[in-house]
C-alpha cells in the first residue's frame, strides 16, 4: 500500500507540472525472480475510458484492479491561495512469471476526451527464483509443494481411422496422503475437427491407481468420446484445471502429525497430437457416406398391398455400433407415381465410453397415386468394418408394392398437370392376340426410283400427248401433201389393177373401166345393171357434183371404151391414168 501511495504521489506530482493527460505503465523494478509477483500499474492522470490491456506473454495475470484517486491541493503563495483538484485512475495487474527470460509488455491504450493515449512498452527480465526474505513466524515457502499431483489425458488410441471412436479419459493422480478439492476453472479444449461427446462424472471418486510405477490416488475427472472428422495430424488442446490441494509440508507438528498446507495449483495436460488415418480408398463402395463401425441395415414397408390414395410407411434404418450420428442414410428411389414425402428422422443412440450404439431411422410416408404394381429399388448401405478392416455393403431386398384401385376421391383431387391422368376405368390392357407381321427391313418407297418414275410418268405424258396432237394437226394442215396422200389412197383403192396392166392396152383399159365402175358403185350405191350414162349423170348431179367434173368423168369413160378398139400409145395410157386419178379425186371431194 505504501508503494501505491508513492506512485500516486509521484503521478500527482508529475501531473501538477505537466498539467496534461499522461498515461504510462510502471513496475517497481525491471528484474524479478521467477517466484516473485510483479505489480504492473497503468496510470492516467484523469478519467479514462475503453482501457485495452496489452498481452502478457510469459506471465499469468490477475486483474485488473482499478483505483480511482481524487486529490485536492491547496497552495498558498504570497498570501494567494490556489486550489487544484486532481483526478487520477490506476489500473493494476499482478503478474506471476511462468518462465525465465526477458519479456516485453506491449502498449496499453486508453481513451480520454476522444483521444487515445498509449503507454510505452516495458521490459521485464525474469531471473532464477530468488530467496525470499524470511520473516519470523512465517513458514518458509516450499516451491516443491504439490509436485505429486498430475493431470493426465489417457487416449484409447493415438492412431485411429477417420470416424473411429477415440476415448479420452482425464485423470488426476495425487499422492495418497494429499487431499484435493475445490476444482474450478475447468478449461476443456474445443476439439476442433472432432465430433465430441462428454460423459460427465456424476461423482468424483478417488480410486487407487499407478502412475509411473508408483502408487497414487486417482480421480477420473471427465470422459470424452471423439470421432475424428478428417484425416491428418490433429492437435488436441490441453485440458486445464485449477484446484486446491492440501499437501504435506514434510514437517511434523507438535503432535507428530504431518503438517499439511493448502496450496493452489494450476494443472494442464499439455498439447497432444492424434494422427488420424484416412479410410482406405481401395474398395471404397460408391454409396459410402462415411459410416464406420458395425451395422445392420433394414428397409421395411409397413404394408405392400394397398389402395391408391392410402399411405404406407417405409422405414430405412441402421442399427449397430459406430458413428451413427455422423452419416446420412441412403434415400429410397421410388417411381414417380408413388408420392414420397420428406422423412421423419429418429435417433435412438446411446453414447457409452466405447462409442455410439443404437439405431437411427428415416421414416418415409408414401402415397401411391394410381393403380399398378410398383417396385422400390434395392437400397445399398456401405460401412467400414473396423474389426475386419474392410468395407461391407448391405443390400436391401427389392420391395414390390401392389396398388389396387382407390375410391378415386384422392386421385381426382390431385392436380397433376404433367401426368396423363388415367381415367378411372382405364385398366392395363391385355396382349394383342392377332397381328400381321412385316419385315423389319422394309425399304422406303419415298425417294426410290419407282416413286420418281411413277410420279413423273403422268406428268411427262402430258407434253407427249400435246406433241402428238400438234403433229397430227400439222399433218392435217398440209394441203399438197394431203392431196398426194389422198390420191395415192384412191389409186390404191380403185386403180391398182389398172396400174399393174400399164403398157398392155386391152387389159389396161378394161381395168380402167372396171375401176371407174367400182368408184361409182362405191360412191353412188348403184349396181352395174343400172349404169346407163343418163342414170349416172343424174345421180351425180343429185349428189352435187360439178358439171365440169361430170362431163370430164363421162368423157373419160367414153375414152376408155373407145381406146380398147383404137390404137393407143404408152403416153396416152399414162395420160388417161392421170386423168382418172384427177377426176376420181375431184369427185371424191365433191361427193362427200
Amino acid at each position, binding site marked *: 500500500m505504501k508503494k501505491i501511495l508513492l506512485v500516486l504521489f509521484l503521478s500527482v506530482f508529475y501531473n501538477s507540472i505537466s498539467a496534461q493527460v499522461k498515461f504510462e505503465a510502471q513496475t517497481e523494478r525491471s528484474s524479478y525472480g521467477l517466484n516473485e509477483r510483479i505489480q504492473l500499474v497503468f496510470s492516467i492522470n484523469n478519467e479514462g475510458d475503453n482501457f485495452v490491456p496489452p498481452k502478457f506473454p510469459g506471465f499469468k495475470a490477475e486483474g485488473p484492479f482499478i483505483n480511482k484517486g481524487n486529490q485536492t491541493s491547496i497552495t498558498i503563495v504570497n498570501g494567494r491561495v490556489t486550489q487544484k483538484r486532481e483526478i487520477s485512475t490506476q489500473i493494476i495487474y499482478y503478474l506471476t512469471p511462468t518462465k525465465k527470460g526477458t519479456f516485453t509488455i506491449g502498449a496499453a491504450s486508453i481513451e480520454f476526451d476522444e483521444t487515445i493515449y498509449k503507454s510505452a512498452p516495458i521490459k521485464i527480465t525474469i531471473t532464477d527464483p530468488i530467496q525470499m526474505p524470511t520473516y519470523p513466524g512465517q513458514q518458509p515457502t516450499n516451491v516443491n509443494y504439490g509436485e505429486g499431483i498430475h493431470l493426465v489425458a489417457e487416449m484409447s488410441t493415438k492412431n485411429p481411422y477417420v470416424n473411429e471412436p477415440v476415448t479420452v479419459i482425464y485423470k488426476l493422480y495425487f499422492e495418497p496422503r494429499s487431499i484435493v478439492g475445490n476444482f474450478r476453472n475447468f478449461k476443456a479444449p474445443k476439439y476442433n475437427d472432432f465430433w465430441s461427446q462428454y460423459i460427465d462424472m456424476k461423482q468424483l471418486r478417488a480410486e487407487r491407481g499407478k502412475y509411473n510405477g508408483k502408487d497414487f490416488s486417482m480421480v477420473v475427472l471427465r470422459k470424452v468420446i471423439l470421432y475424428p472428422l478428417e484425416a491428418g495430424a490433429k492437435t488436441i488442446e490441453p485440458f486445464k484445471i485449477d484446484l486446491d490441494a492440501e499437501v504435506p509440508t514434510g514437517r511434523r507438528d507438535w503432535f507428530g502429525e504431518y503438517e499439511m498446507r493448502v496450496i493452489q495449483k494450476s494443472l494442464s495436460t499439455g498439447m497432444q497430437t492424434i494422427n488420424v488415418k484416412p479410410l482406405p480408398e481401395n474398395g471404397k463402395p460408391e454409396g459410402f457416406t462415411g459410416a464406420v463401425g458395425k451395422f445392420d441395415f433394414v428397409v421395411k414397408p409397413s404394408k405392400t398391398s394397398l389402395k391408391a390414395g392410402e399411405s404406407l410407411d417405409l422405414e430405412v434404418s441402421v442399427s449397430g455400433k459406430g458413428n451413427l450420428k455422423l452419416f446420412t442414410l441412403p434415400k429410397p*428411389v*421410388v*417411381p*414417380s*407415381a408413388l408420392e414420397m414425402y420428406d422423412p421423419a428422422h429418429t435417433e435412438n443412440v446411446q453414447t457409452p465410453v466405447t462409442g455410439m450404439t443404437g439405431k437411427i431411422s428415416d421414416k418415409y410416408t408414401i402415397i401411391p*397415386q*394410381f393403380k*399398378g*404394381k*410398383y*417396385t422400390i*429399388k434395392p437400397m445399398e448401405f456401405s460401412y467400414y468394418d473396423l474389426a475386419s478392416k474392410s468395407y461391407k455393403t448391405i443390400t436391401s431386398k427389392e420391395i*414390390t408394392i401392389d396398388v389396387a384401385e382407390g375410391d378415386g376421391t384422392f386421385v381426382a383431387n390431385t392436380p397433376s398437370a*404433367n*401426368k*396423363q391422368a*388415367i381415367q378411372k376405368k*382405364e*385398366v*392395363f*390392357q*391385355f*396382349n*394383342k*392376340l*392377332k*397381328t*400381321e*407381321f*412385316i*419385315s*423389319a*427391313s422394309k425399304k*422406303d*418407297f*419415298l*425417294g426410290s426410283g419407282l*416413286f420418281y418414275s*411413277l*410420279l*413423273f*410418268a*403422268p*406428268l411427262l*405424258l*402430258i407434253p407427249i*400427248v*400435246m406433241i402428238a*396432237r400438234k403433229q397430227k394437226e400439222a399433218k392435217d394442215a398440209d394441203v399438197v401433201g394431203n392431196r398426194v396422200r389422198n390420191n395415192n389412197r384412191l389409186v390404191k383403192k380403185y386403180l391398182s389393177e389398172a396400174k399393174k396392166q400399164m403398157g398392155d392396152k386391152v387389159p389396161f383399159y378394161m381395168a380402167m373401166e372396171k375401176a371407174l365402175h367400182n368408184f361409182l358403185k362405191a360412191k353412188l350405191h348403184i349396181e352395174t345393171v343400172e349404169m346407163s350414162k343418163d342414170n349416172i349423170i343424174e345421180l351425180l348431179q343429185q349428189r352435187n357434183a360439178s358439171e365440169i367434173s361430170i362431163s370430164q368423168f363421162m368423157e373419160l369413160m367414153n375414152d376408155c371404151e373407145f381406146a380398147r378398139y383404137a390404137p393407143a400409145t404408152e403416153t396416152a395410157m399414162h395420160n388417161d391414168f392421170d386423168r382418172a386419178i384427177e377426176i376420181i379425186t375431184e369427185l371424191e371431194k365433191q361427193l362427200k
Partner: protein
Amino acid sequence: MKNKIILFFLFLVSFANASESIDATTFKKGNDLYNKGDYEQALKSFESIANQGNESADLYFNIANCYYKLGKVAPSIYNYEKALLLNPDDEAIQTNLSFAQKMAIDDIKILPEVGFKKMVKEFTSTFHYDTWAWLAVFIAFLSLLSFLGYYFGNTVFLKRTFFSLFLLFLVGIGVTIFSAFLQKKFDTNYNPAIVFAESTTLKAEPKNSSEDVVTLHEGTKVFVLEELGNWKQVELTDKTKAWIDKEAIKEVKAKN
C-alpha cells in the same frame, strides 16, 4: 419357261406363307404363356419372332407387356415406344405406356410444341411418308386424266371443268410431295431413346469433368440430337439439352 417362272413364284409365296404361319404359331404360344402368367417364357417366344426380322406394333406391345409384368421399367417403355412408332394411334399401347411410365422414377415436365411448326407437324403426321408418296403418285395420274379430259374435251364446259381439276391436282401433287419429304425429315429427326442405366448424370459438355445438369433414372424418354465419341446430346421433354453417356440409353429406332 413361263411355267417355270410361275412355279418359282408359287414356291416363293408358299414359303412366305409357311414362315408367316410359324411366326403366327409362336405368337399364339407366347400369348398362351402370358395368360398363364409365365411372363419369362412368353417374352422368349415373342422375342424369337422379333429376332427373325419380323415386326409389328402388336408384337412389340406384347413384349412390353411381358416386361411390365416382370417389373422391368426401361425395356417395357422401350418396347411400348417401338410399338407406337409402328402404330401411333393405338389406344391400348398408349394406355399401357402410361402405366409403365408411372413405374419410372423421373417425372419430367412435358413442354408442348406450339405455333406454326406444331400445325405443320400435325398435318404431315396424318400419314406415313410412304403413304404420302403413294398419294402423290395417285394424284399425278389423276392430273394426267384430267389434263386429257381438258385437252380433248369438245365443249367449253368440259374443258373448264377438267382444267380446274387439273390445276387442283397439280397443287395436290405439290402438297403431298412436300408433306412426304417434310414428314420424312421429321421422322428422321425424331429419335427417341429410353434411359436403360439405373441412374445416369447428364453433363453440360461431352466430358466427365463437366458440370452436372440433371440425373436421370431408368425408363426416362429422351430425344437424341447429336453424337460425339462416347456421348450423345439429348433433349428432355422439358426441352433441357445435355450430354449423356452413350451406353446409358437405347434408341427406339435402332435395330435389335
